[in-house]
């Protein structure tokens, strides 16, 4: 772990760091940052060859416009580093995130906040405090074998823990490692990379009670823990610990080309995850499988840049398709009968126009349109839920370059959240507290129209150090419900819900 941290810090301090200070570098324009953060090839092929950025950001969000299994109040501190460095024919690039998350008033939250779509998670309705910590690293080392071939090795590392401080006390320790070998083929103006994804992971979870009165009583129903075995099939006081063993396999194809004043980046990936869940704690090699969950994840994205004389045009296209399904030994000894399915689709189209050359005032403007469709079924509970909605966000930003070289940015991004289609069916003879409190809440959340206003300010200066650009960043956003498509509210989701977001941070561009 420490090796990874040292390595990331190393690549965040390139040898020729000062060569970009004072120019309109990749740091001062948001579209540039968007490009080099998109995928490993982007920062592997990026110009400049050496760059680095570290940031420390505090963020806070609170309010009841949230999903049922999200905290009413979340505070988070992120340390993030990204960079690339050329060392002869070797090139190392990657990013690293370390963060601490403090959740307060989180109900039904006895799970990690990473595996959103999976099952086999504990829950209890008692709202409480949780603390989480993540280490994430994505590191690529490549070697230019000749002008054409550039093999590389990409490593994806995740270490996570969550702990809760109210009964039933939850603890999760999760670890994932993906080893992704590949090769980049460099042609004139075109680069193509292909990589394999091979990985393993494991997670151990447990619930315990400090107050033994809660552990066997039904007098405190909010303290009773359940195991979620689908999206409505639940088991009361099932067990007190679980293990999840994950394996990953997949591939990714990335392309980059330029013809004329157009730059095109394409990325296609497919990743297949297989989780085996058990209550056996003794061995990771031999254990009695109790449930499985398979998740197929497909991603496609394109980035088209048109370099005009005065303006830069950026079109981004993204699509994600996720298909997940479980198997429970209770229903089939070979896990071939599916109880829970999830199907998640998203598509995004974005356009951003940026003024390229400016002396004092600059601007960019654009629009993002996002489409989401979430469909989940718990066949044992006769439950089917489907929500489709879109986000439409126009945006504008102005840049002001002061005479001393400081750069000040103000951005404004309103958003409209509009539901398109909502459908739910369930059996009253299968209703339970999870369906009533989580499934119906989330259904109401997704089908609620809302607006969001997002303000952002950034100040970048080279006065703090002649070596580095130093920046300060602040963001405030407010999201508010504006009603539903139906007057019938199925859950206790508040129809006047609000959520506020605030973040502030500092960063160094190296």
């Amino acid at each position, binding site marked *: 772990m420490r090796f990874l941290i040292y390595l990331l810090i190393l690549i965040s301090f390139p040898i020729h760091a000062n060569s970009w200070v004072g120019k309109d570098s990749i740091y001062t324009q948001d579209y540039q940052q968007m490009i080099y953060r998109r995928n490993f090839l982007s920062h592997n092929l990026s110009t400049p060859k050496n760059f680095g950025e570290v940031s420390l950001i505090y963020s806070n969000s609170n309010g009841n416009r949230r999903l049922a299994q999200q905290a009413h109040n979340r505070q988070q501190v992120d340390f993030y580093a990204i960079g690339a460095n050329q060392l002869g024919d070797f090139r190392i690039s990657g990013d690293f995130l370390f963060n601490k998350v403090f959740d307060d008033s989180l109900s039904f939250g006895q799970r990690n906040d990473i595996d959103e779509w999976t099952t086999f998670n504990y829950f209890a309705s008692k709202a409480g405090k949780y603390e989480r910590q993540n280490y994430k690293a994505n590191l690529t080392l490549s070697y230019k074998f000749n002008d054409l071939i550039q093999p590389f090795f990409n490593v994806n590392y995740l270490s996570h823990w969550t702990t809760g401080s109210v009964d039933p006390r939850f603890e999760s320790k999760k670890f994932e490692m993906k080893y992704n070998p590949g090769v980049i083929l460099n042609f004139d103006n075109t680069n193509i990379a292909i990589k394999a994804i091979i990985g393993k992971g494991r997670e151990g979870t447990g619930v315990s009670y400090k107050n*033994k*009165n809660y552990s*066997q*009583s*039904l*007098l405190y129903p909010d303290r009773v823990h*359940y195991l979620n075995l689908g999206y*409505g*099939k*639940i*088991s*009361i*006081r099932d067990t007190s610990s679980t293990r999840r063993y994950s394996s990953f396999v997949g591939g990714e194809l990335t392309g980059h080309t330029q013809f004329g004043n157009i730059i095109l980046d394409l990325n296609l990936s497919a990743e297949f995850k297989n989780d085996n869940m058990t209550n056996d704690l003794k061995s990771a090699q031999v254990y009695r499988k109790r449930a499985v969950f398979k998740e*197929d994840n*497909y991603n496609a994205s394109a980035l088209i840049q048109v370099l005009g004389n005065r303006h830069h045009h950026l079109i981004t*296209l993204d*699509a994600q*398709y996720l*298909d997940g*399904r479980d198997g*429970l030994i*209770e*229903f089939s000894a070979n896990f*071939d*009968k*599916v*109880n829970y*399915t999830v*199907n998640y*689709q998203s*598509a995004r*189209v974005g*356009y951003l126009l940026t003024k390229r050359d400016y002396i004092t005032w600059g601007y960019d403007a654009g629009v993002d*349109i996002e*489409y989401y*469709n979430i469909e989940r*079924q718990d*066949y*044992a*509970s*006769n439950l089917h839920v489907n929500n489709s909605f879109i986000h439409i966000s126009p945006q504008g930003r102005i840049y002001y370059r002061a005479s001393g070289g400081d750069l000040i940015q103000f951005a404004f991004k309103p958003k409209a959240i509009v539901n398109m289609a909502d459908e739910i069916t*369930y*059996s*009253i*003879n*299968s*209703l*339970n*507290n999870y369906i009533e409190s989580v499934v119906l809440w989330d259904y109401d959340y997704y089908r609620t129209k809302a607006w969001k206003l997002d303000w952002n300010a950034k100040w970048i200066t080279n006065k703090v150090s002649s070596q580095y650009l130093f920046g300060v960043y602040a963001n405030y956003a407010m999201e508010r419900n504006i009603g539903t498509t139906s007057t019938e509210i199925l859950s206790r989701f508040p129809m006047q819900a609000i959520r506020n977001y605030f973040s502030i941070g500092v960063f160094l561009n190296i």
Partner: protein
Amino acid sequence: MKYKLLQFVVVVAVFLQGCKKDNDHVQAVDLVYQLEVDPSVVAFDVPFDKANVVLINKTNNEKYNAKSSADGKVSFNGVTPGTYSINVSLVLPAADFTNLSGIWTEEDFHLNYSEDNLPYYSSSSASIPLVHSQPLENFVIKQIYFAGSHTTKGANFRDQFFEIYNNSNSVLFADSLCFAIVHGKTTNTTGDFLLPNLQYDWSKSLDMNSWGNANTDYIYAKAIFMIPSNGKGDAYPIQPGQSIVVAGTAIDHTKPYTLNSNKEQGIEDGTLTIDLSKADFEVYMAPYLRKIKPNSTPFASDIDNPGVKDVEVLFATGMNDLLMNPQGKESYVIFKTSGNVDPNNFPKYAIPTLRTLTDATVLYPQVPVKYILDAVEISSVIEKNITPRRLSLQLDAGRIAVTGGPYSSQSVVRKTKKMVNGKRVLEDTNNSSHDFGVLLKADPSKGSTSFID
């Protein structure tokens, strides 16, 4: 441009929708029941639409209710596959019963049914034979404090007691009245020599030789405690509406006391437990233990209070003091034999899963149901922890649990049905789910606070 972008979104969405996998999936089940009665017992047309049917999912403790049609048909559609319990209760007010049967009564008429561990993994239909049992105007079990109190801050199981109440209109004598802990299988595992509900099939016990049905005409006792008698049977008259309390150890558990080992038994939180020093009887096991094992020493906390009479221990296994299972895995009966029948002479049998008998094999006394005055089926409050019922539906068509679980200081108490001339008449429909409630703290005082009105 915008139009083309939207087109892209739609095309991608349609394409991805087409990628969805088609899986063989689990199906919710539909359950259909037909309520029935034995026409030789109930000779009139029962208005089944008055029946309440409760289906309980043992996996998640959720309860689902349904009403019956007039002809007794009950349906539950879209039920999650799993293991279930079912409870049916039908109450005919006295006037309705009189109209339907032509037999005058001032008591309500009850029909009940209860079944546990029903595996429903596919749609099915079944008949439900409702059971009617006529309660006796006699002694009833009023209160059972089996849960005990907090294991470290309270008194653990040391403060357990039970209370027996005269629910009749006449003086009854407690002499030779027996209280038995009913033994049964305490897990839901499958195996041989078991009934469909996974309880022991006592008819398969080795050397079983009894008249009638070994499972429904008898119970098998883990312990029998008898109120002593003066030989004439008139030593302990109990007035109508009065009761006797039998303590495991008749001392004040709210305060420290000296154990038989001369060590002090402290108490961290006296409010969690109770004062049993005023109990009418106590279970002092030392004489019985010495009888079956001459060199045994009294259990440390089984203090003999000389001011409180001891019950006679006729049989006890797996305990050194009165020990009722705090998890609710035992049931309880009171019985009184007639004539010259001596409970000490009841035949004894091993559990049917034991296929070889040795000198060490525990043999459980077989108590005929015909002597039983009252019976209470106890269970865990969490459905999945409920073990197979030990009592037949004729003895108790329901069951009762403490909501706080083991060591919660709670007791189960028979509810008050009515007051007659200042005397409480307690519910007795032979359905503990209906007749009993939970007292948040066990109360041996016999006062108004010890009742659930």
